[in-house]
């Protein structure tokens, strides 16, 4: 596989990741969100593997394996168990209606593209074109957290931001040193456990997972 | 021997003050009677009143404190001391270095301070009212008085009276508008300070109108004599102060005999004129309501400040 072919595959995968990010933004049903998130994790791990192969960086294989297990298998399973246990109703209302969110999303992609232009013309890596996509995924994840009212969707937004960051790491610098990769993975795993525990607490205290209820601590009176 | 002459002269001046003051007061009363068509009790009536009071017993309130009994002496002492300082006959007096005009005004303030306290000591409403009104008027009259005198002192570049007389009388004569303003305001202030008609009626017995009388209501016997005598001396001193500050031409420069004689003569003539002008003012005007007095004193204050400003601008 020549370098240019790998680059093409990588950019296809980047496009797919961006697609799933947009999908997450607009998807109403919670199971749909779960599946989209799993797909995004899969594309990310494949792209890491491809980059690892192209740049002969063997530690990337471990990192892609880590992403595969974590983002595609473990996290979706945890979320699936929680959703079943907490009997979350399927329909998710968004704070801002879908068309405007899409518009903002597109604006963010353009913004991140123009923003990462200096990095692109500096970077010698084959994957320099995908940095803009990585930044866009991060910002879209943030946008998703802002526009969603449900705790689970916020967590999925947070995790998709992490995916964006991992993707940025691989595309900008052929992946961070292994120690850092492992550390970040470990943190995400702990974060997963924590938000699981949180879901139970919130459910018992507020007996709903709607974030709008949680607005007691304010100083506007 | 020649050293002692100024001291003797100063003693003589105090004695003249002591005995001339009742005469001047008597003279003013008799003039007033003539102007109002009443038969006079004669110029010597004040002497007779004082002698009578000195011999009578004292009737004192139960709760009168030592301040009430001590005040007449302080008032008398401060006024006599002031008399020793003002150059009535000659300017070469040993005591004249003791106080300049500001200190002189302050001596009169001591008298008023203690009289006001005595007024409040007995605890009657009239005493309190007299003290309150007296101090209110005093606190507006005193600044105007100081301003009038400041104008004169700015003209003569000194605040000690003998120096001012020296500059005005024996220096070359210049017509100064600032002095005219100062004189006008000084006359208004003198009326207020000595408690004459437009501000306070010295001869009244209607409690609600009297200010100075209100404070000394409870006095009797020799205490009342001392206070009455001090009042008369204060009137006499204000007249001589006015003469010394504004018409000093007769006052002797050195202590030789002929100059003193001329000084005495000019003093008598000036006092005569002063008495007549005072009575003309008193019979011409009626006593003002208490809350008209601030405007009266305000205008005096205005004249004095105008005098000072004109000094800077014109001279």
């Amino acid at each position, binding site marked *: 596989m020549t370098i240019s072919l790998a680059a093409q595959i990588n950019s296809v995968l980047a496009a797919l990741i961006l697609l799933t990010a947009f999908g997450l933004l607009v998807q109403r049903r919670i199971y749909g969100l779960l599946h989209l998130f799993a797909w995004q994790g899969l594309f990310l791990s494949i792209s890491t593997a491809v980059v690892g192969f192209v740049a002969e960086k063997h530690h990337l294989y471990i990192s892609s394996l880590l992403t595969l297990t974590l983002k595609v298998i473990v996290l979706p399973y945890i979320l699936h168990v929680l959703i079943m246990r907490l009997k979350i109703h399927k329909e998710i209302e968004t704070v801002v209606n879908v068309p405007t969110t899409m518009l903002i999303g597109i604006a963010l992609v353009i913004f991140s593209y123009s923003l990462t232009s200096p990095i692109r013309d500096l970077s010698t890596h084959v994957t320099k074109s995908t940095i803009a996509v990585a930044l866009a995924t991060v910002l879209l994840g943030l946008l998703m957290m802002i526009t969603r009212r449900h705790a689970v969707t916020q967590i999925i937004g947070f995790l998709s931001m992490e995916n964006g960051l991992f993707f940025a790491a691989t595309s*900008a610098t052929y992946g*961070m040193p292994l*120690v850092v990769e492992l550390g970040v993975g470990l943190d995400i795993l702990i974060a997963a456990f924590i938000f699981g525990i949180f879901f139970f607490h919130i459910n018992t205290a507020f007996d709903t997972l709607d974030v709008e209820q949680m607005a007691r601590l304010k100083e506007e009176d | 021997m020649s050293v002692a002459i100024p001291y003797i002269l100063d003693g003589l001046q105090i004695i003249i003050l002591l005995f001339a003051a009742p005469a001047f007061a008597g003279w003013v009363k008799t003039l007033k009677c003539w102007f109002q068509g009443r038969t006079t009790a004669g110029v010597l009536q004040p002497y007779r009143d004082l002698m009578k009071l000195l011999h009578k017993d004292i009737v004192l309130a139960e709760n009168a404190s030592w301040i009430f009994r001590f005040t007449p002496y302080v008032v008398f002492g401060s006024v006599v001391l002031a008399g020793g300082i003002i150059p009535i006959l000659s300017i070469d007096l040993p005591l004249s270095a003791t106080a300049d005009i500001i200190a002189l005004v302050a001596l009169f303030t001591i008298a008023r301070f203690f009289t006001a306290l005595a007024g409040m000591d007995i605890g009657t409403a009239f005493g309190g009212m007299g003290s309150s009104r007296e101090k209110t008027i005093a606190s507006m009259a005193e600044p105007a008085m100081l301003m009038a005198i400041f104008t004169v002192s700015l003209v003569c570049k000194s605040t000690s009276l003998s120096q001012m007389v020296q500059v005005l009388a024996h220096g070359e004569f210049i017509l100064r508008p600032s002095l005219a303003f100062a004189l006008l305001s000084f006359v208004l202030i003198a009326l207020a300070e000595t408690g004459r008609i437009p501000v306070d009626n010295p001869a009244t017995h209607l409690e609600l109108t009297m200010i100075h009388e209100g404070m000394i209501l409870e006095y009797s016997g020799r205490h009342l004599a001392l206070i009455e005598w001090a009042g008369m001396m204060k009137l006499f001193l204000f007249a001589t102060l006015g003469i010394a500050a504004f018409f000093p031409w007769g006052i002797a420069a050195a202590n030789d005999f002929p100059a003193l004689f001329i000084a005495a003569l000019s003093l008598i003539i000036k006092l005569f004129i002063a008495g007549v002008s005072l009575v003309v003012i008193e019979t011409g005007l009626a006593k003002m309501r208490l809350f008209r007095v601030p405007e009266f004193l305000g205008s005096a204050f205005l004249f004095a400040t105008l005098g000072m400003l004109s000094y800077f601008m014109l001279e």
Partner: protein
Amino acid sequence: MTILTLLGVSFIGALILAFVGDRKFAPEINIVCSFATFVASIVLALRVYHDGPFVAGREFFFIDAFSVYLVVLTAFVSMTTTIFSKPYMRREREHGRVGHWGMRFYHAMFQLFIFAMFLCLLTNNVGVLWIAMELATLATVLLVSLYKTPTAIEAAWKYFILCGVGIALALFGTVLLYFAAEKVLGEGGEALLWTNLSQVSGQLEPTVLRLAFVFLMVGYGTKVGLVPLHNWLPDAHSEGPTPISAVLSGLLLNIALYALVRCKVLVDGSLGTHLAGNIMMGFGLLSILVASFSMLRQKDIKRMFAYSSIEHMGIATFAFGLGGPIATFGALLHMLVHSLTKSSIFFTVGHASQMHDTQEMSKIRGLIRGNPLVGWGLMLGVMAIVGMPPFGVFTSEFLILTATMKDAPLMTPFLLLGLGVAFAALLRRVQPMVSGHIPSWQHPLKASHVPVILHMVLILVIGLYMPDFLSRWFHMAVELLK
């Protein structure tokens, strides 16, 4: 070797306490662990003090004057906090506000949190710095929701989400930093090592560094609690148990600022302009003004002191942004005395709220008469935190304000306004609490004397007589940050 003991003791402590957290002797283990780490940190400090900064563990750890002073401070304050938490948590346990699992979780997470902070300070690798910061956040998230009340859970959730987002942005900044460093230092782990980065910061690519600094600033800025990224801080610091608030306010903010200043040194090296400083000054000033005005309307005692932490972190950030030897010296001193004073205040606040079973300031009265240590401790603590002279905070504010008056005189009216309003706000609330007769609903309490007295004496000593070694220590750190 000492580094390993430092990290090891706290990690193993966390593991042990995970199992025996609820036993009688659990607090004692907690204290012993912290005391051990404190001794280790002293040894470390002496070594750095004598033979300068050194690298250990095959370049994984790096300690210089700037990081070791924070290590000692962290160890000391965590030790005194464990001493304070013994009676406090026992009372919470008796009143049933914390269960069996809660106690075990509390002690374990406390030690893990200390471990994470030490890792942050000691590591040489900027990536590991990020991971340790994330670990510290995660450790304290559940501690904030220990009481399981709705508001506590809400505060913890906001803390988790907002800090998570902030830290993610910081990761992106680190990636950009790594990208720029890779150009100069080549592939592999060396590019992220702080020792290499600081030497080579002159050749790093300015445009990329500028972008990286923006992300790092917003990321770590969220952790420092600078306005407008501060919204999580008042909730998190006021809902958790008081020892946690003390440690959060006192230490975690310092470490976030430490990370931010490390990045600023790199960015200054490559950019050459005063850009990073100006951004930090902007954020600092905004924090001072917003925090001091919002203190005016607080009703909850811990929320008020959380806002005071935001204000003081704003002052420190402003001073670091200002740069120059005196301002940096002042900023370092300010971080030290602020964490000492704030943790001592939180100790007294903890006792005060336990005495009245509420955090409502309107219900807390007659503290001096009720419990002289808590009353005078709180009063003198507040006197210290608002910058009244005999205490250390005045010294640092004196240096910072005079430096500002020289270099940026136009900023001083805002500083004057901020400090004045903060002073009035704090005093207005604390004065009625401290004075007056004992209210009927106040019940007596045996307060832990040692930490409060220890902290106040230290601040007084630093305020009146700065020991020579401490000032030389700061000068070494100032050389690094120039």
